[in-house]
Each structure stands twice: as C-alpha cells, then as structure tokens.
C-alpha cells in the first residue's frame, strides 16, 4: 500500500495522493495531447473518386446547415477529456468517511425484544439498530462474511455466514419486533458455535472438532437484561452498540390481576401496579375496560423511579376479560396495557388415599380448598380396585395424595406422598428418627409461599434421600423433610413425616404439631393450587410472552384450539394424558381456548417485566458477559471508503459511450 503522503479534505471527503510531482506533470500533459491529436485529426484512408465536386458540396451543406454536426465532433473530444479527468480523479483516491469492519468474519446480533419497540429514537430502537447493521453490511469488503442473529429471550439465526450482502440485507429486513423479554445468553451461544468449536454450551468436555474461526461480534441492544454468567467469549471479539436514548419516559404496568377483596372475600377486585421508569414525575389516567367497555378509571401521579398500586372494585362481575390501560403517551406503548381474565374457576379433581387422617381431611375441607378442588377420599385398599387403575391412567385426576401408602405405578397426575415414598424415580429415605428440627425452607416455591414453619415441630420422620433432579423445599438438621421432583409432565412432592402415626395400641398419635399451625391449611391450599392446577379466586394467572402454557383438555378426544389476540385460530394437539402444550404466546393479550369449537377457557399474556420496561440506557451503557465487561461503543472508528473503483467504472462507461457514439456517427 502506498503511504498516504498527503491528504486533503473536499466537502467532507478525503483524497490521497498516489503520484509524485513529475508523474502529475506527465498526467497533466495528457489532455493537451488529446486536443492536439484531435486537431491533427484522424488517419484517413485515401480513395480516388471521379470527382470530389458533389462530396465537397455535401459536406459543406452539412457544415453550414447543422450545428449538431459540429457539436458531435466536439462531443467526442469532450468525452475523451472527461475520461482523462476521471482517471486523474481515480488516481487521487478520493474517499468518504465510513465505519470500519475490522475483521473478515462478523456476527451481527440484533435485539428484537419488547423494549426495542421504544420510540425514544425515531422511528424505533429496532429500526435504528437495523440502520446501523445496514451501514455495516454496506461496508463489507469482497470476501468478508457475516452472520445475522436476532434475539429476545430466544435467539434465531436470521442468516448463516455468507458473503452475499443482498441476502444479509433481506434477512435484516425480515427481523420484526417481538413482545418478549431479553436474554443475551442464547444468542451468544449461537454466535459462538463456529468461533469456539467444541463449546456446545452444555457440555464442557465436548471434543473440539474444527479449527476456531475468530469473529467480530457486534451486539445491537438496549441492554435491559441480567449479566450473562457462565459464558466465555473465547474467539469472539465483542462490540456493544447501545441503541436508545440516555433517558426515556415510560409508565409501565408491571402487575395486573384479579383477586378477592381482603375486607369482603365475596367481592372481586382488580389490582394493578404502575411504575414510573422515567427520569421525571409522570401522571396518567388508568382505565379499566371489561370486554372492551370502560368500567372504571383512576388518576395516578408517580414520582420518578417509584410505583403506584391501583385497585378497582369488580362487584357484579362474574366473567369477562379485563384490560388495564395507561392513557399517557410514553416511549414504550406496549407496556401501557395489561390483560386479565375473570371466569368461573375449574375445580381440581383430587383423590386422597389414606387409612384415616383427620387433620389432613380437615385441611382439605376448608372453604378455600373446597372452592378450588373436589376431593375424593378412599382407603389404600382402593389401590387394588380396577376403578383406581382406570382413574389413575385416564388423566382425569389432577392430584393424588398417598397418605402412608404406595401405588404400584404412579398415576398420570401430580402426587403428594405423606409419610411414604414414590415407588419409582430414585426416592429413598433414612430410617425413622425423632426430634427433627426444621432449619431451612424454600419460600420461593409456590408450595411454600406465605408459609412460616418456624413454630412447627416434627416428632417423628424419615429424612429423605431425593433423586438428583429433585428440589428440596424443607430441610431439617438431619435431612430433607419436603422435596419435589419432576416426572414427565407431572411433579411428585414427598413429605418425610406422616401427619398422624398409627400407634401400636391401635389409636392415632400426632407425628407433628403442624396441623395446629395456620401454616398447615395454607400449605394444603398451595398444594391444591399448584399440584391440583386450580387457580385462586376467579382469575387466570398471567404468563409472559413466549412462555409455554399447558392446557388441560376435558378429554383426550377433545380438539383444542386457541384464538390469539390477533384473531388467528391455532389448533393444539392433545397428548394421551389429556394435556396440550401451547407455545405461540408471542404477543400480549387474551388467548381464548376452544374445546371442540366451544369456548373453554381464556388466559392472559402480559409482559410484566420492569427490566424490559426500563428504557434508560444511562450515561455509560455496558454489557457484562462472563468475566468480560463490554463498554458501549458510542462512536465508530473512522475509516476510508475509497471511491476510485467506482470512478474508474464511470470512466469505462464514458469510454463505452464514446465508442458507441463514434460507431453511430460512422456506421449508424
């Protein structure tokens, strides 16, 4: 490469001098030489004719009558001069300032999560990110390859590695905004596939099978996600391009649901929480719509960074779909709406097999549980009867409680074992021991929500040895007392101690004082809700966009379909157990499940993610990937985009035009 000895700046563009003075002088002689040659005229073939008399008169007539004839002669000269001018310009190596793609392999990772719909940069953050990427694709040199990945909470390879810039541009245009949350981890694993061979992301002992292909990783995102832990960039050289304004205005609904009023349990109430994630105090009207009809409204004024709860009375409302709307305009409209469903709850079908357990029966007969679940109580002898076999295998049961008894095969339902163990799944227990002290409980699990077991004493129990996949919920000084483990589509919970113990004398004694605590009926209520699949009150729980919903079919022969908020009807295959997994929950709104074309149930999908709704990038945005901190690239390293190839091409076009014009004059 010739060093850029001198450079100049013309209207924002740059030139680089490739010639020395004498070379320029030589080039400068070319135009006068062309003009000189033009006056010396062309080499003409001599031809003897009878008389030049008529020819001369013809030429004179043409000269006199047609100025165009004269112009045509001059046009060739002008074209030749233009050609040499273009050549001289190309030699000057003009260029315009551009952004630099430093590597031969690039990976463009574009965030299309919900927050990228923010309009704090016009027309939107996603459009701005795509504009950046389009510019970088234009900068690609011949031989450079690039890959395009979009990500929200899932990653999608929009275009595998290619040097076809048109394919990349088309793939870029196909990227659409989603309403999902953000998780960079999967996108990084996808991007790292070729750069770090052998890193499957799941198996650290994976054998390296191909040579590493280092790549530049360009991440276009507005952040809004947790640091990516447990990922090593390896051969990826990251560049984070933050998209969005430093500060933005956003009032977001972060929670919305329906529940019983604390004062009057017979009444339903709609609860919502609105957070001001902007930098200034903001106010808005909050509207509540029932089936598209405005039924209530409230006014909120929220200081910056704080939240405010609203509650609406739903007296007289039995069924319907609710929509909560923040009417103020802000930078992210999609979190200004939330949805909930009010409906008749489906009662869980519960079977309890017990030799007799009064405290347990009482706990399942409370008003709350009765509303949620229909409980059938049988003795362990029922296990041997054909009716049990039919019930256990049909999927008609939601939850089965085995109190000090054990079935031969586990049912197609969730189970709770009290003082006994599941026959399969790797469960075992230590011998019975007395005086167990509860030392830890996992309150994050739905079964133990709102529970305080500090005042519970367990007199006799067999500490559990749960399988590896199990989650210990209650731990004691000698071992786990409550654990839960997944089994295909179901879960098995095991309580290590019986509530009551059969005494040798024939009577019953308490193995724990838990039934006398308020936490016991609450635990059974949680079990009814979680293991029974019943829902509290009259509301369906909201799920997040993109999450999977497990639908329970009234029977295995029922055809289920779901109508999305965009009025698309999607069939959902039902598996032999009568359950169906529905995954197309990409957009917010009410999803209406139909069983054999009849309305069956509805469920709402809401964003409810303060991290996603928080649009502020801050003054120095950065990403944390593994142990690497990637600072946001606010400006690009300048580079020269040389134009000489284009100018030479233009020169060739001029030459072709000149040749065409000459031939047209001579032979046309």
């Amino acid at each position: 490469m010739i060093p850029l000895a001198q450079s100049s700046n013309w209207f924002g563009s740059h030139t680089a001098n490739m010639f020395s003075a004498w070379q320029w002088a030589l080039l400068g002689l070319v135009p006068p030489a062309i003009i000189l040659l033009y006056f010396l005229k062309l080499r003409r073939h001599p031809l003897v004719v009878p008389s030049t008399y008529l020819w001369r008169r013809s030429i004179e007539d043409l000269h006199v009558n047609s100025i165009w004839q004269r112009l045509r002669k001059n046009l060739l000269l002008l074209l030749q001069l233009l050609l040499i001018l273009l050549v001289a310009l190309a030699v000057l190596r003009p260029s315009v300032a551009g952004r630099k793609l430093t590597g031969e392999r690039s990976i463009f990772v574009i965030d299309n999560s919900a927050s990228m719909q923010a309009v704090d940069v016009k027309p939107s953050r996603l459009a701005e990110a795509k504009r950046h990427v389009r510019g970088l694709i234009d900068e690609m040199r011949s031989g450079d390859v690039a890959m395009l990945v979009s990500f929200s909470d899932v990653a999608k390879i929009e275009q595998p590695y290619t040097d076809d810039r048109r394919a990349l541009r088309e793939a870029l245009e196909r990227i659409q905004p989603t309403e999902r949350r953000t998780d960079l981890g999967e996108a990084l694993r996808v991007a790292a596939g070729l750069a770090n061979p052998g890193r499957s992301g799941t198996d650290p002992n994976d054998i390296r099978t191909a040579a590493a292909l280092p790549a530049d990783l360009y991440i276009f995102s507005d952040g809004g996600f947790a640091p990516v832990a447990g990922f090593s960039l390896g051969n990826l050289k990251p560049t984070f391009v933050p998209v969005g304004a430093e500060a933005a205005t956003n009032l977001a609904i972060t929670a919305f649901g329906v529940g019983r009023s604390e004062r009057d349990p017979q009444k339903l109430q709609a609860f919502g929480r609105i957070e001001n994630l902007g930098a200034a105090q903001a106010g808005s009207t909050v509207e509540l719509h029932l089936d598209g009809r405005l039924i209530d409204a409230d006014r909120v004024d929220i200081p910056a960074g704080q939240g405010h709860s609203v509650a609406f009375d739903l007296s007289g409302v039995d069924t319907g779909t609710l929509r909560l709307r923040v009417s103020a305009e802000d930078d992210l409209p999609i979190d200004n709406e939330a949805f909930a469903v009010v409906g008749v709850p489906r009662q869980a079908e519960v079977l309890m097999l017990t030799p007799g357990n009064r405290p347990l029966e009482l706990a399942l007969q409370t008003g709350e549980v009765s509303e949620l679940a229909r409980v059938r109580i049988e003795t362990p002898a029922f296990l041997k009867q054909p009716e049990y076999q039919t019930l256990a295998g049909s999927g008609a049961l939601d939850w089965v409680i085995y109190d000090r008894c054990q079935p031969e095969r586990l049912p197609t339902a969730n189970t709770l074992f009290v003082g006994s163990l599941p026959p399969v799944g790797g469960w075992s227990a230590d011998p019975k021991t007395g005086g167990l002290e509860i030392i830890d409980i996992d309150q994050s699990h739905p079964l133990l929500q709102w529970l305080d077991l500090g005042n519970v004493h367990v007199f006799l129990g067999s500490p559990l040895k749960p399988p590896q996949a199990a989650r210990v919920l209650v731990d004691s000084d000698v071992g786990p007392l409550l654990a839960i483990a997944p089994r295909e589509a179901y879960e098995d919970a095991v309580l290590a101690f019986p509530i009551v113990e059969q005494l040798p004398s024939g009577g019953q004694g308490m193995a724990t004082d838990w039934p006398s605590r308020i936490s016991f009926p609450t635990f059974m209520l949680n079990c009814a809700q979680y293991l029974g699949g019943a829902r509290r009150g009259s509301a369906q729980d909201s799920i997040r966009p993109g999450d999977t919903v497990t639908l329970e079919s009234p029977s295995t022969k029922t055809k289920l379909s779901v109508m999305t908020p965009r009025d698309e009807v999607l069939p959902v295959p039902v598996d032999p157990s009568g359950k169906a997994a529905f995954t197309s929950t990409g957009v917010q709104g009410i999803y209406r499940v139909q069983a054999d074309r009849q309305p069956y149930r509805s469920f709402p999908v809401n964003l409810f993610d303060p991290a996603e709704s928080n649009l502020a990038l801050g003054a120095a945005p950065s990403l944390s990937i593994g142990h690497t901190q990637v600072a946001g690239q606010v400006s690009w390293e300048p580079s020269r985009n040389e134009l000489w190839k284009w100018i030479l091409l233009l020169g060739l076009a001029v030459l072709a035009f000149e040749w065409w014009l000459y031939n047209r004059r001579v032979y046309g």
Partner: protein
Amino acid sequence: DASSSMDFGEPTKLRYALQLAASLGFIGLVRGDRIKIETLGQSPRTPAPVFRGRRSLWRMLDHLEGIRPGETASLAEGVKNFCLRNSGKGIVVLITDLMDKGGFEPALRYLVSQSMDVYVVQVLSAAEIDPDLQGDLRLIDCEDDDQAEVTVSKAVVDRYKQTLAAFVEGARSFCTRRGMSHVLTRTDAPLEQLIGGFLRTRGLVR
C-alpha cells in the same frame, strides 16, 4: 467526354459512352447521315474524321477504339472548341458525366448558341449514384488531385444523394428551358433500353 472522371465505374463511363456513340453512329451510317465523333479534349486544329455510309462502320469503330481516357480539358473548353470546329446545322449528342468543378452551364450555353439539336446524355456509374463508402476517408479527385476529407456516415451519404439529385435535376431543368434534351443513364443499365426506349421517345432515334 474522355476526361479522367469518365474512367470509373463497372463498366467505365467512357466504355459506356463509346458503346452509345457506336450505336448512334451505326444508326446514322445506315441512314446515310454524316457522322462525326469527337472528344472534348481534342485539339481545335485537328478535326475528327467524318464517316458516311455503311462501309465506314469499321473505320468509325477503329476511331472509337482509339479514344482513351485522361483528357484534361474542362467541359466548357471542350464544348467551346467543338463549336469552333463544327458550325452549321445538325444533331449534337453530348455524352458526359457533367462533373466539372467549373459547372456545366457555360458548356451547355455554347451549344445553345449553335443552331443544332442538342441531346445531353449524362452518364453516371452505380458507385456515383449509390456510393458504398464508410469511415474516415480522404477522397482524391482523379482529375485535379483535389482532396476532401470526409467521415462518411449515413447522414453524409444521404446528404450526398440529395446533392446528386439536385445536381441532375438542375442539369435537366437547364436543358429543358433551353430546348435541349437531357437524359440520365447509369452504366449498369442496358444500352438497348436507352436507345430503344428513351431516345426513341425523344425523337433522336426513329
């Protein structure tokens, strides 16, 4: 006209002119007319031989065979000398291409002043009527070595044809206005067609 310009064409214009002269001469000899065949470059003091009677046919043909191209006299000068040598009544057939940079008008005016019936047969070759030229050429006049540089394009050829048409039309108009007959012929046209057709209608041949 035995000038150099008549030595072009396929056959040459001069060859065509000699054949025409021989044909007309033969008709005259058969009819017992007095026939005289002269070229424009002929010296004023050496008049051409006179032929009469069928027996003079071979002599006339020998005379015609002796005519060579390359005479340098202009059209006007040649006609003037002819008029000086030949006074009196008769029929004059001038066979020429009329390509003279001095113009054909002075020459024809000399003929008008004679009390003769004048027929002007303008002979042009096919290459002159429909030139097949292309490219950058330096055209050299065979008579005076005059050079004309021309880039022959379709437009130039079209313009040449227009000029030629105007030139022929000018000659015809000049002759008609002065009681002369003008006939244009091309060297690739059959001679008998010219004699049996056109000249017969004009009264030159019965």
